[in-house]
């Protein structure tokens, strides 16, 4: 399965679906046959409300969970067949990827570089480089549980980059951060893009997507409703602000869903009467 996709598309997704079984609700289709492709060196935004399927999609891409249907490739590696190679190619950052509290910042970076197979001989140099780049030197030997949230966030980004992956996934990274830390994070992501990293960025905050993303995919109900640059979306909808663009697509999608449900109900009624 590997290398079946063009190498200039570092991330490619085809018909990806995820069905969960919930005791109360039965089968829940969290992601429903999505397709997407990221270009090298861009920030690709996944914009959607809570529960739209952003996190599930990104967790499938990072092989934390496996798809129910469909396939995705990261740097040409299949998420289903080569999960370890996929994980080696990307760094995953989210509000739920915490740091080990009883390790120091330096130990943390050292561990993640090694376990993600950064060349052993260069690990020390890499760790020093990250410590300097993210301003960690002052607290590099302090245990993570003694650090402030801003310090932890810097260590966390450095951890994501420890093995210098070409692709970075940021899943709602600014959730829970104060304004200054959120701005610093956004600035870091932009710099990483400028260095040539491919970035998948999920958010429900319109302003973040507007400022940061080269292309934006609007996801709703587990489906991608549209995907384009901000200008392309403006042109397609005639709306200026991303908020309005988002509402435009979601309304259309919900209307379509309502129509489909009504049609299905009518059909079922007709079938029952026919019997």
């Amino acid at each position: 399965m590997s290398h079946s996709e063009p190498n200039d598309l570092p991330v490619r997704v085809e018909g990806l679906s995820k069905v969960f079984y919930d005791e109360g609700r039965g089968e829940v289709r969290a992601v429903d046959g999505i397709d997407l492709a990221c270009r090298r060196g861009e920030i690709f935004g996944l914009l959607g409300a809570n529960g739209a399927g952003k996190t599930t999609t990104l967790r499938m891409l990072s092989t934390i969970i496996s798809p129910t249907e469909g396939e995705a490739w990261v740097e040409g590696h299949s998420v289903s067949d080569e999960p370890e190679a996929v994980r080696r190619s990307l760094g995953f950052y989210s509000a739920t990827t915490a740091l080990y509290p009883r390790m120091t910042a330096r130990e943390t970076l050292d561990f993640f570089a090694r376990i993600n197979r950064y060349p052993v001989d260069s690990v020390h140099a890499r760790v020093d480089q990250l410590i300097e780049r993210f301003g960690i030197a002052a607290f590099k030997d302090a245990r993570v549980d003694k650090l402030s949230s801003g310090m932890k966030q810097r260590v966390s980004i450095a951890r994501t980059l420890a093995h210098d992956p070409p692709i970075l996934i940021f899943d709602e990274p600014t959730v829970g951060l104060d304004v200054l830390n959120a701005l610093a994070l956004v600035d870091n992501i932009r710099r990483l893009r400028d260095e040539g990293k491919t970035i998948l960025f999920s958010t429900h905050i319109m302003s973040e997507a507007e400022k940061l993303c080269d292309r934006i995919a609007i996801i709703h109900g587990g489906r991608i409703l549209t995907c384009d640059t901000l200008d392309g979306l403006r042109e397609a909808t005639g709306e200026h602000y991303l908020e309005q663009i988002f509402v435009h697509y979601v309304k259309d999608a919900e209307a379509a869903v309502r129509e489909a449900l009504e049609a299905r109900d009518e059909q079922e009624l007709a079938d029952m009467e026919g019997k």
Partner: protein
Amino acid sequence: MSSSWQTSLRDLRTLYWRELRSALRERTIVINSVLLPLLLYPVLLWLIFTAMSFVRGQEERFVSRIAFLDLPAAHQELRERLANDEDERFEILEFSTLEEAVAAVRSGDVDLVAHATKPPPEAAALDGNFALELVYDESKDRSETAHRRFERELVDYRRDWVDREASARGIDGAQWDLFAIERENVASGKDMGAFMLGLMVPLLMVIMIAVGCFYPAIDATAGERERSTWETLMTVSASRSAVVGAKYLYVATLGATAGLLNLGAMAVSMGTILQPLMSGREDGLSFQVPMEALPLMAISALLLALFIAAGMMLFAAFARNFKEGQSMISPFYLLCILPPLLVNSPDVELTLGWALVPIANVALVFRSAIGGVYPWDLIGVVFVVELATILALLWVVRWVLSFEDVQTGNYGGDLTKFLKDFFRKKEA
């Protein structure tokens, strides 16, 4: 060795050291897996000695207040002996009537009343003979101590008096001492000590190893989920097998550490702890764990740690936080203690049947080794059975963790519920 194997081993090592390093910075884990097994016996020793010294000191402090009534003139020496006791342990009080003296015992003003009465007719032939009625209050520590002290003095006094009377009548002691009893226990003090250690040590070892595995097993599973580091770990390049393998080895390491430290502490301090408790015995019990048994006991402890770690990992795999982890592992912990309790009888020995029962078999190997008995064929069976059970448990752990909702911590239930759900789905 292929390169992928080398990579897996390197990952395993990296993950394992991380687990261990973090664990050794966690106070609860260090206390339960290192300090408790190491210090339990010296601390016990100190506590026992302190308690014994305290009790003895309390007893020594008492002056026993004794009242004699109607003591024959020929036996006033008994009163004199007590009154002139070198350690001044007795105080002699005077009462005119028995009723007054007994009332004083009841009220706690006197500890013991020694009331001399006429001897039974068959003993009355001896001049100056008498019967002695002792009145004391067993519910009072001081009165009970007085009773014990007085009885000891009385035995000495009677022996001296009988010897004197016999001698005055030209009878040698050996003539009226009709038969003598000689006791010979063929078991040496060392054998007896080994027998008693064999009943205690296996149970203590199982408890210590289980305690050593308990917190690490929760820390490695539920702890990761509670701290939100589980998802971070799931994004590393290492295989899932390496992640689970490293966690298992970490839990087993701390269980084995607890077991081996406990063994070492027992070897060093058990003799010293138990010896004073048997100070009244004359057969010179030796409670030393024999040095030649230590290698076999160490290997057995290691096997036991590997088994208990696998079991605890299986139960803890479903826990999403420390509370769940504790409640899920506790039944297994209690289950681990049951087999050594079952075989904790001198009648139970290592047989082929017991060799097939996990944990109980290792407990019996401990006992055999302490007793200096090495049935190597059965010990071999025990090792094979233990290893097979460990592999089977690890296979189940791997199977359970291959289910995504268990792996990600989204499964809301324990092992029992999981198995029920699994078989129900299979039937459907």
